[in-house]
């Protein structure tokens, strides 16, 4: 298991992908995740996206994985739930490049090595 602290002003999705590049991880399961974003940008079921604004937005749950595509580039697919300054929750898929860490983000990745890649 890899545990990391992501510092402010880094994108959550791309930071996880960069972490996999740095650690030589091709596939991973998100074991743990908690932290804050300056604003959360998540896809809605209708295909649009919505921004939940701060001063900070708490990420209360992520289910996600990282897979490496045909070009050798890790791609993180993260879905989850965030809560705002009133404790109200929203959920969806985190949009890459648009979920900026506010104070800190802790991420725990479990490398996964399948016998036969799906």
């Amino acid at each position, binding site marked *: 298991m890899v545990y990391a602290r992501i510092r402010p002003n880094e994108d959550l999705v791309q*930071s996880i992908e960069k972490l996999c590049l740095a650690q030589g991880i091709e596939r991973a399961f998100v074991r743990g995740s908690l932290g804050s974003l300056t604003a959360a940008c998540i896809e809605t079921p209708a295909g649009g996206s919505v921004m939940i604004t701060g001063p900070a937005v708490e990420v209360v749950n992520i289910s996600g994985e990282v897979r490496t595509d045909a070009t050798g580039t890790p791609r993180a697919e993260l879905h989850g739930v965030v809560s705002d300054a009133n404790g109200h929750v929203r959920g969806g898929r985190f949009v890459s490049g648009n979920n900026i860490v506010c104070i800190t983000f802790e991420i725990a990745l479990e490398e996964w090595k399948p016998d036969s890649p799906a």
Partner: protein
Amino acid sequence: MPALHSRLVRHPGRPADARCLAESSPNCRTLRLTFATGVSLYEGIVLPLRGEKITSAVINLLGGPMQMIEYCMPADDASGRTVATYGEPGRERNGYFLGGTATLGLAVDGLPFIHCHGSFVTEAGDVRGGHIVTEKTIVGSTPVTAFARTIDSFIVQLSEDTETNHRVFHPRSTSGAITDGVHRS
């Protein structure tokens, strides 16, 4: 529809060069924990893991009824010392915890410390979420289960972050001072 774009934030301190601090623990164990009625999430996590000499772990909390859930939500910092802080804690009596993630590590003084986020249903049926105060979140009428993934080749410890002026968890490759006891609040 206008493009949505997240802004960067200028924090009070100078940004550190390294933007992601990572350590790996190749030989993790998974422990199943059960928290009895009346036990705080903090005690439920800390006491059995201390018994196993485990100071750092990543914990997946499952759901269950709670006598009390204490939680914090983000707020502006009127002092200007940080870009965001926590407001006064909210308390939800007889809520139902839906699940969450916690990190067990060490405080600056070496005592166990838990950082936890989670979601829950209020007694009125609304779903809420936030930073869970594990010392004051108390298990209700039936036990609550968690799975702890133990960290054995580095530690996680709070330290001052001069960039944000917050005290946050960092992975550390060297072993820190471990103090007997638990935090009382």
